[in-house]
């Protein structure tokens, strides 16, 4: 007992109000209701008023892009931490969604209100069909295949010179104005974040989490795990394809950059920053990283260097993420106690 650190240690205790608001009695006091609802309300209101507080239209554009990245990050978090599928195929989803929507729009002139839903559903089915043979694979093997699909598709399009080839197709119809762009996607993010959180606590989600923990045991309980994984991937790829279709119409252009590696790497970074397994975390992480990467754009290629160094640092020094940290501070207090 010579050094001070040995005599004391940090103790974490739940706040009294957290314990009081766990059950139905939370609604017995305004304080309890406020405490319980504050994080959710702050998240929803924060997202909704964010476009109003940023100064310029360029920043509003960045928010739209951050929203789309947030959707991809949400998919990544859902598939990785709730289904146990490490899917690096974000670029695959955006590419397929964007190309379907773009082709429908440019070839037959179908308006946006129809192309985006068609791309979402059709893209989800296509992506799921392609990923179906790989679903029995575990961990790193699935990760590599899903990382290779977007590269393969981009190369095939380039080699066959179809769908506009290397140059892509310009002149897709765009959204009428920035407010439509913003307030079409923001409610969807909020809806999906809380929808998926509800889903993973339903019976369906319990099976998914069981598959993540021990797939053999679930299989032994006579549950078709591939079918459950298929449904999860279908949901994930639908969201990803929606993001891709949205992006294509946002730029009014579709091209090979919809298959770019960024869409696979960014969700990982956002999840690491925000905290995996929280669903809200990746969304917040995307809203931190997307503006950051825009600000670093002035540095040119050095931006990617910063970016990957930050990612490597966060992974190597295994940080817990922003949301778990905030959650802990919110629900618990810490004090030093004598040992």
């Amino acid at each position: 007992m010579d050094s001070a650190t040995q005599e004391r240690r940090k103790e974490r205790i739940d706040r009294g109000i957290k314990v009081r608001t766990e059950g139905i009695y939370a609604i017995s006091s305004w304080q309890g209701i406020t405490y319980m609802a504050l994080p959710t309300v702050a998240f929803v209101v924060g997202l909704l008023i964010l476009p109003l507080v940023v100064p310029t239209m360029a920043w509003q554009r960045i928010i739209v892009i951050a929203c789309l990245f947030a959707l991809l990050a949400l998919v990544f978090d859902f598939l990785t931490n709730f289904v146990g599928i490490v899917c690096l195929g974000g670029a695959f989803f955006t590419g397929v969604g964007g190309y379907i929507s773009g082709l429908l729009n440019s070839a037959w002139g179908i308006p946006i209100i129809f192309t985006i839903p068609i791309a979402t559903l059709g893209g989800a089915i296509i992506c799921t069909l392609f990923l179906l043979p790989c679903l029995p694979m575990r961990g790193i093997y699935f990760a590599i295949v899903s990382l290779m699909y977007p590269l393969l598709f981009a190369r095939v399009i380039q080699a066959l010179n179809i769908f506009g080839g290397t140059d892509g197709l310009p002149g897709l119809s765009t959204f009428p104005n920035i407010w439509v762009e913003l307030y079409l996607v923001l409610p969807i993010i909020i809806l999906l974040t809380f929808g998926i959180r509800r889903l993973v606590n339903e019976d369906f989600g319990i099976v998914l989490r069981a598959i993540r923990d021990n797939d053999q045991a679930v299989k032994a309980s006579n549950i078709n795990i591939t079918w459950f994984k298929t449904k999860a991937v279908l949901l994930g790829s639908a969201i990803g394809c929606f993001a891709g279709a949205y992006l294509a119409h946002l730029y009014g252009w579709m091209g090979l950059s919809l298959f770019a590696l960024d869409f696979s790497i960014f969700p990982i970074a956002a999840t690491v920053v925000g905290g995996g397994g929280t669903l809200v975390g990746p969304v917040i992480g995307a809203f931190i990283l997307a503006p950051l990467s825009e600000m670093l754009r002035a540095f040119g290629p050095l931006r990617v260097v910063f970016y990957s160094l930050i990612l490597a640092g966060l992974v190597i020094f295994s940080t817990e993420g922003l949301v778990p940290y905030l959650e802990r501070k919110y629900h618990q207090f810490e004090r030093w106690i004598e040992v």
Partner: protein
Amino acid sequence: MHIFIFGLVNSVILALFASGFALVYGVSRLANFAHGALYILVGFSTWLFLNRVGINYIGSIVLSILIVSLIGGAIYRFLLIRVKGMPDSEIIASLSIGIAIMELFRWRGFISETYMLPPFVKGSVNLLGVMIDWQRLLIIGVGLAIMASLWVFTHHTKVGLSLRAIAQDKHASMMSGIEPDRTAVIALAMGSALAGISAVVILPLGNITVETGYMVLINAIAVCIVGGLGSWAGVFAGALLLGFSQILATALLGPHWQMVVVLLFIIITLIIKPSGLLGRQKELEERV
């Protein structure tokens, strides 16, 4: 005949790409996604030593291979050692280190001019009716020499035997006093040196570009996956298979298809038999 000779050269090139990656993976089960970055690092640093510092060609080659093997060892010792045993984190960490190195070169303006290393031997020779330059023949020679010396190294030296021991049975070799982390550092340093050697023999064939790094990485992964991760015979088989199919695809369909073939091979192999042609089957680790 044309296809046969160039297919052979291409296979040896692929085997060289993959040898470092396979060595690291075989010993420490670590997929080193920074492999491509280390490859172009050697290319650029050799060019710098040769043209900016003014050391002679052999000297700059030796110096940059030494430097890159130190860097490879350091990457494991100080960074990757922390995420050991978590395959996803290993891949993300090493890939982002690799991307950081490659994009650093892009930022320093290594794309504006063309960077070329001079070939060791100039000129070409008519071999069975096919004109082939000496450098390509040299690649075959160096490739075979490296494979032979790797075999001797892993079968007849103490360090090499300890590398193989760790690869075969980690716990048993730890019991006999082999330090897994030290062998992993050695493996990564050697893997980087192999990347370096292949870089200095292969790069004189064309320009040094940042994209080469990504290309090398994908090819190395493809060869290892098709042949079977962690199997040397598999590296040969995978390199031959991919090398000839690349050349065939280029000859029959066009140069764009070269990469498509590689990616298709990766995906099909992983779907049908994830352990590869000659890898040891670990059914439960791979699929449910």
